[in-house]
């Protein structure tokens, strides 16, 4: 019995959910600063995409939320 639950298939899900959460936490901490190396290039690329998206919204939805 674990945490008041007999069936290993159920306490397994309970513990498994906690472990999955911990996996996310550990992964996030280890990689906290990774993946942002090419910052300038990424920013340019993102700006391009963002501009396109805004154009689509303006053109097709007729909205303009001033976000960029």
């Amino acid at each position, binding site marked *: 019995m674990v945490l008041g639950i007999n069936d290993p298939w159920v306490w397994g899900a309970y513990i498994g959910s906690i472990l999955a959460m911990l996996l996310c936490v550990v992964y996030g901490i280890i990689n906290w600063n990774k993946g942002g190396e090419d910052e300038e290039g990424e920013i340019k690329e993102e700006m391009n995409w963002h501009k396109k998206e805004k154009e689509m919204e303006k*053109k097709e939805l007729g909205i303009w939320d001033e976000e960029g």
Partner: protein
Amino acid sequence: MANNLLDLTIIVLIYLALIIYVGYVAWRRTKSADDYMVAGRATHPFIMALSYGATFISTAAIVGFGGVAGVYGMGLLWLTFLNILVGIFIAFVFFGKRTRKIGHNLKALTFPELLSRRFNSKFIQYFSGAVIFLGMPLYASVVLIGMARFVETTLSINYNIALVALAIIVSVYVIFGGIRGVMYTDALQGTIMFIGMIILLGATYWILGGVTGGNQALTNLIHVVPAQSTAVAAATGFTGWTSMPSLGSPFWWTLVSTLILGVGIGVLSQPQLAVRFMTVKSNRELNRAVLIGGIFIFMMTGTAFIVGALSNVYFFNTIGKIAIQVVGGNADNIIPAFISAAMPVWFAYLFMITLLSAAMSTLSAQFHVQGTSLGHDIYETVSGKKGRASVLMARLGIVVAVIIAVILGFTLPPNIIAVGTAMWFSLAAAAFLSMYAFALFWKRSTKAGVISGLVIGTVVSVFWIVFEFTTSAEALGISKALTGKSVLITTAPWPTVDSIVIALPIAFVITIVVSLLTKPPSKEHIEKCFSGVK
């Protein structure tokens, strides 16, 4: 009552003031695109993760699936496990990074557009747009129902009035502020949801004597309740709230194939979620978002399912009935009834705000995706016209989506929230998942291959929903009208097997086989798509 009304008014006013304030700050800080990029940097992973989480987790997950946990018990926690492992970890780390890069390389703005450009096929864009536009109203509608059921119970307002009032509130929000899911308000909604759920989980375990004590009481409950209370469920495989149903029983198939697999895996190909990966600046933001998202989803679905299951103990101890008896057989009402009965009034109001937050962030994304499906993916692709006409179509799409959602809210039967959500997730998985996964990970996949998978996956899934899966086939009544039988194959377990178990593998196999039989895509195109993908 007068005091309660005062409490309610104060809580709602504080909530509205916060939303308006955050919306204003976001608006002030993001006057230009440059400001947006710079100012957004420090907060972005938090905003991204909470906004993704708030969009992913709706009232359907909390009220609908929480209620389902009241019936099926804690075995539903496998869905929490998959939500975190698949819906956050695999989605962000593997799908998210590539979606972002390839989406930017191809300048894709919507999910159907990403797939259509990746495979050079306009058909993919309008066919996918149509699947979204026609299928998603069911999902939007159950999100609304979840909210309306809670208001009905908490404020003792007529359900139909609650439904219409909420549809109006959400429409106003979608049209005047949240149409592109202004991420800051989404993140605020996420924060409110987080706080509400933490209090709920803590308070529930506290009332029931701690984690082990509460779970133990739930484990023992099956031996304590009169056998007749659970007779119907037991006949189909139910064995208790902390044990899995009998393997292969109808109860087991519904829990495992529909509720756990359908939603647990289907999340990967949800258009309104996939599009969010294209809005982040670098993989670093996705890495950080994994941490926040993992905790957030655990607190949301974990709390909902644990509390839903434990409500049986509370109700049995206080009024001698199990949860589903208390709500007259409609599992959609279990969470609202538990909160009204077990929690102080102020918390019920706070929780209502939590749910309103959850509903608004999900609905605004859903309605937006439906609007762009009709305007951008279908109308513009088919007619080749841009500009004013396509604006009109997108707006029309949103209006139609809201109206359909409300009509479904009036007509859908009880116990529908979780099943309705699962049906949409299954359909989206059958239609899009093989195409989406291969678009990101298999350069040899071909246009003919993925189109075959898309069409056949969709057709098989719809066929199964209409003619074979009992819950949906009976509700729709089309099979009965056409063939005289409510489902075509009555031999167990088929009527209780979810469409995802059938349609998804078929779609994958077809895509692979047809891809291998057709000419590989040009090298230049693949290089363009995958430029910069590590």
